[in-house]
């Protein structure tokens, strides 16, 4: 099977005011694959992932140049419907951020906004999303409980379920496990592998072993530049760039 690209990023630049945070970044996101972004703090990996569904629009003085497209359509074109873009490209953050409402309402919130009203249909979405997020067995008998009563790992999977409820194509994860214990981390990692059957996953992580375990492609970033982007097995066994080698073997700075 030939990999098709969901996203194409070509010579992309980003400034926060005077400061350039992304410099000539080029990479592709392959459909139904897990793509990991690694690099030291401040290298621009979170900035890059936030560009993918225009979360940076919310930052004052943020300016971009270059091309970033989703299914061939320029994400930064004036005609792009940002609401629709964020529906298609969901995002999971470092700290689980469920809404302070019931488990069920967390899941149905998005579909309701997008016009789903039939109770049967909403029930079906709740079950499907929770199953896909590997959470159904743990919460099916407490759907009316507050989401905040769940454990951290469960809350994170609930956030993933909430993203899945509106049928995204791409799921962006910004350090989704850094606030979780090893067992919850392992569940999220398994989940990322499961999700790639139906979705495309882009994950930012500080944990290199995690990137090596779960991703198909890895990009290494450093001071705003994409230093190396290649197949994960290649990057972690024989990186092409000396900087990548030094970073992943811990001989940096």
């Amino acid at each position, binding site marked *: 099977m030939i990999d098709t690209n969901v996203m194409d990023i070509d010579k992309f630049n980003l400034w926060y005011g005077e400061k350039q945070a992304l410099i000539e970044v080029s990479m592709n996101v392959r459909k139904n694959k897990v793509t990991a972004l690694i690099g030291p703090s401040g290298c621009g990996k979170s900035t890059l992932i936030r560009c993918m569904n225009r979360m940076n629009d919310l930052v004052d003085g943020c300016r971009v140049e270059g091309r970033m497209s989703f299914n061939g359509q320029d994400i930064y074109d004036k005609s792009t419907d940002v609401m629709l873009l964020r529906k298609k490209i969901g995002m999971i953050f470092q700290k689980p951020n469920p809404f302070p409402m019931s488990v069920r309402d967390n899941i149905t919130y998005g579909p309701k906004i997008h016009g789903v009203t039939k109770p049967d249909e909403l029930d079906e979405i709740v079950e499907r999303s929770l199953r896909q997020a590997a959470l159904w067995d743990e919460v099916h008998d407490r759907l009316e409980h507050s989401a905040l009563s769940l454990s951290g790992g469960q809350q994170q999977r609930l956030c993933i379920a909430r993203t899945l409820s509106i049928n995204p194509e791409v799921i962006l994860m910004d350090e989704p496990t850094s606030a979780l214990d090893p067992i919850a981390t392992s569940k999220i990692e398994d989940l990322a592998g499961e999700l790639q059957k139906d979705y495309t996953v882009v994950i930012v992580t500080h944990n*290199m*072993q995690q990137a*090596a375990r779960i991703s198909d492609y890895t990009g290494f970033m450093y001071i705003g530049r994409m230093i190396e982007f290649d197949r994960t097995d290649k990057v*972690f*066994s*024989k*990186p092409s760039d000396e900087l*990548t*080698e030094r970073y*992943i*073997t*811990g*001989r940096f700075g």
Partner: protein
Amino acid sequence: MKKLSADIKEMTNSITEMGELVAEVLEKSVNSLVNSDVGMAEEVIRKYDHIAFLETLIEDEALRILILYQPMASDMRFTATALKMVTYLERIGKYSKNIAKAAIYLRDRPTTYRMIDVYSMCDVAVEMVRGVVSAFENRNTDNLQNYIDMDDKLDHYRVSVIEDNVKHMRIDPTSIEAYTYYISIAKYLERVGDNACKIAEKVIYMVSGKRIEIDGAVRGL
């Protein structure tokens, strides 16, 4: 990560030492055979035990590195090579021990067979073992270029040892058992060459990340 660098340096030294010991033992095994030196043969057998001990020791150390550091890239390739290399070195040690045991057996059973080809095989095999150990130690594979030729040489010598001994068997059937020993020794030395080639492949992988079969594409190095 300073600790990992130090551990890797130390393990490089341990494996180099083990490799030098293996080459020494191999050389002595054939010398003990050619000179009917039982004392030297016994020394080889004793030293093999130490080689087997080193294998376990270094393997444990490599596993410890895997657990503690989960090495990546060149560190991963080093650790993987170390793990495989000690196994191959131990086998070469084992073949040397077998040759030493044969030397003890053959001392009391003199034959008319001249061991010239066996000695030549030993020279080539020892050179191959020393070569891979130094390539590993210096992370430089330049001297591994002619390993196919050396391996071919061992195969040719082995065939010639078999032919010579079969001739001797026909002339002197009372010593058939002794001649079969020489044939076995040639086989051990040929296997030493194979194991040295396997180590060479791993060292090439360690240094360049390339997987090359020594009896295939190594010429393209």
